């Protein structure tokens, strides 16, 4: 067993668990986007960052892939985590304003403003579709193409390859191409309709 401190509480975790596994076990809420149980961890969206302190040094790590270690102190809702998380939600919303998942995250975590000018790309490049196609469906029909700001999920040469069986798993798992958020349309706009209803209570973060 591994002993660590999670949001001020001493807890035990199984060897090999990630911080996210541990938090889920103890009912501590950490938001995730590119992580889904059953698919490999990708550590790309960075929404699940938590603060890990070992000795005097503390840093932000992706809880979905960071394996628990003896003696670490984890804070899932410190000032540093909240600031980073909110900027990340803001960055994703700038490009994907009509995702209900993201709009709800904004309300939940109190993001009330998008300060970045984006364009509606309708994809957050979380890679869930790519991984479900490859890892669960043995499809290998879609993948990331290009890099940096031009990165996109693509089929080879933009043509449906033989490998695609039209199984629909990619659509099923996509956090963006669901029913759109009804409150907003344009990049930079926020719905915030349920801001007061769902916003988090201040969390005992042990700060």
């Amino acid at each position, binding site marked *: 067993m591994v002993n660590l401190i999670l949001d001020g509480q001493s807890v035990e975790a199984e060897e090999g668990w990630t911080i996210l596994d541990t938090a889920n076990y103890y009912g501590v809420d950490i938001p995730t986007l590119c992580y889904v149980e059953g698919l490999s961890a990708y550590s*790309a969206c*960075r929404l699940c960052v938590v603060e890990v302190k070992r000795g005097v040094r503390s840093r932000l790590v992706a809880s979905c892939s960071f394996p628990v270690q003896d003696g670490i102190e984890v804070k899932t809702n410190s000032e540093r985590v909240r600031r980073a998380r909110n900027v990340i939600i803001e960055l994703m919303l*700038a490009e994907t304003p009509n995702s209900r998942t993201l709009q709800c995250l904004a309300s939940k975590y109190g993001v009330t403003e998008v300060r970045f000018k984006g364009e509606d790309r309708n994809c957050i490049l979380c890679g869930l579709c790519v991984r479900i196609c490859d890892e669960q469906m043995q499809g290998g029909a879609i993948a990331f*193409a*290009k*890099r940096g*700001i031009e990165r996109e999920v693509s089929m*080879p040469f933009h043509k449906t*390859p033989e*490998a695609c069986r039209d199984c629909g798993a990619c659509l099923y798992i996509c956090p963006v191409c669901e029913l759109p958020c009804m409150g907003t349309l344009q990049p930079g706009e926020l719905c915030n309709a349920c801001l007061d209803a769902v916003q988090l209570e201040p969390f005992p973060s042990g700060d």
Partner: protein
Amino acid sequence: MAENKTSGIAEFVSRVIEENGAERSMLAAILHSIQQEYKYLPEQALRDVAATMEVPLVDIYSVATFYTSFSLEPKGEHIVTVCMGTACHVRKSPMLLEEICRFLSVEPGGTTEDKSFTVETVNCLGACAMGPVLVVDGKYYGEMTAGKVPRILKKYQKEEYPPEPEAMRLRSPGELSGYRDSVQQTRYSGETSVFVCSGTGCQASGSLEVLESMRLELKSHGLNGKVMVRGTGCHGFCERGPLVVIGPDNVFYQKVKPDDVPRIVAETVINGKVVESLLYEDPTTGEKFEHKEEVPFYAKQNRQILGPNGVLDPYEVDDHIARGGYSALAKALFEMEPEQIVDEVDRAGLRGRGGGGFPAADKWKACRKARSVDGVKYVLCNADEGDPGAFMDRCLLEGNPHSVIEGMIIGARAIGASHGYVYVRNEYPLAVKSVTHAIKQAEEKGLLGKDILGSGFDFEISVSRGSGAFVSGESTALMASIEGRVGEPREKYIHTAVRGLYVRPTNLNNVETWANVPLIINEGAEKYASVGTENSKGTKIFSLVGKITNTGLVEVPMGITLREIIYDIGGGIPNGKKFKAVQTGGPSGGCLPESLIDIPVDFDRLTEVGSMMGSGGMIVMDEDTCMVDVARYFLEFLCDESCGKCTPCREGLKHMLNIVVEVTQGTATMERLDLLEELAEVVRDTSLCGLGQTAPNPVLSTVKYFTEEYREHISEKKCRAGVCRALVTYEIDAVACTGCVRCLKACPSGAIGGEKKKPHTIDGDKCEKCGICLEVCEFDAVIRK
């Protein structure tokens, strides 16, 4: 032409796959061959590759679109590449690119309609001392100006492989030292020797022609065989190339042309006299120096790693052996236990030269201790030197590849690895060639491969070529790239020393780090550690470039001050300009102002002040450099090179760039500057890999040390360096203007009007603010406001 070849695609692809093997790790090499043959990757070829190698087509499509060396669009017959590295940028490569595109009527990245030229940009070719640099079909042209463009777009030069020596396997340390003696006696007995620098920088100034004339001239005097001639690796003083050094006294000639060769042979080689006019002359004092060691550029250096570059033919393993090469290997194999090797490196205090400065011995220990499922461990050499403005690794690999190979074998022995890879940038064709050749020679000599020197230790090295992605220099991305996948990083909460290449324990060190290893083994940890500061031992190689009198490669003891490097070795700032900043650490580093140039060069001290050692680019900036523009430059570079996997790096850098562009255009507010800082901190805190985590450094350091310049751009709409085009205007002083029509003819946008002998005027609407008029005017009549 590509069209005629399309019918043979299937045969070509199957032949290439047969030659390389259908291993996934050969994918990049296979795609490189196809790209080279057809000048692009035809869709049919990729389908054939997928089918033959049994890899999903989409994976190959991913790889083909990720790396910039590959193109899915047909390209022109001639590839014109303009370097956009930092050093070239501060020497106005954007203007050069503009002129080339205008001349060929093509956009950057595009191909001319007749498919004869493709114009590309590259983020640093590592020929920084010669900047701005233009490459046409692999031939380098240094110190380019817009005016030279039309003349150049034709030439092509074929390179030859030097003759290969006969192979003879060495089976023991005794045979190695016996062979060394015989090589020294038979081949290097001549008293006089001629060393012609053939590094990329000197080649760009025409050193191959000098070398050829030298061989012919000596032959005509019947001196071939009596005088040793060597085309060597980089001597470092690229600014003054082509360089020729005459041994044994090291008479140092600079800016040598083929026409000078007969005089050098007649006077120096035959009569031992010095040709005055070719000596280096101090530009300020006018003093001339005869010998290499006396030249101020070399005098303060400690060239323990770079030194052999100047006397070795990189294609001759015998040169390396004659100078004591592979003696450290013999010692490590026969006189030391693996633990002792690690201990020696530990006590020497060797820290990684690739950027972070992580203690090499700690990595080695972790990798040595790590368990491998099948006993296989890997040792890698990172030669993906992507930092714009840095080229020391290129020079070492080009000029002295055996020192790197020797270091790797010793490391492999210490760690217990059986296979190694050298991962080299594709933008360094000479380095690829030289290291590939050196590996082959070392294998033939029994210094690499099975049963090295009869010790029973097996270790082999393969070369893996990068394909144009800066992020592939990151350790996990580099390993993915070697495995034939997209070179994007992954989390390394479990270190690569435990789980690296092919999920095996893997040790990665940079070229310069490996080159230090034989030295440590040969002279011992204590002697090695006597150079340097408390926590940074040995020497560090820097590429000193930008607005500096003596550009080139310098190797200095750790602890030397930046001022000593810039003023004593570098000769200060040219043209009487004022020093403004020095940038170290490439896109991960920062810009340091004049108030900090007395700090010692040391891993920890540089990090403390917001920069870093990095791989060793040192770019000097003068008063004509705008610090906001520098921040914009690095952000553009990083946006271009980000793999796009994680949100903060991909999206965050894009928005940081947007804000900095607003500043350069005078449309930003102070609140936006605060947002820039907030965003920078989040990107640093949350990015997945080192690229994103350090990407904000150029911005944060310029905001910190040059706040005033940001404020001026925002509040006063003023760019004091006159770089930010939106904030400057050009006018002609009617009194000073003589009406010589030079500016009128030079203006590419036709914005200057007027007649001969009457003052000219600039039409503000047409003016593109390129500044060419200011450069060509001889009467100081063009004013920039």
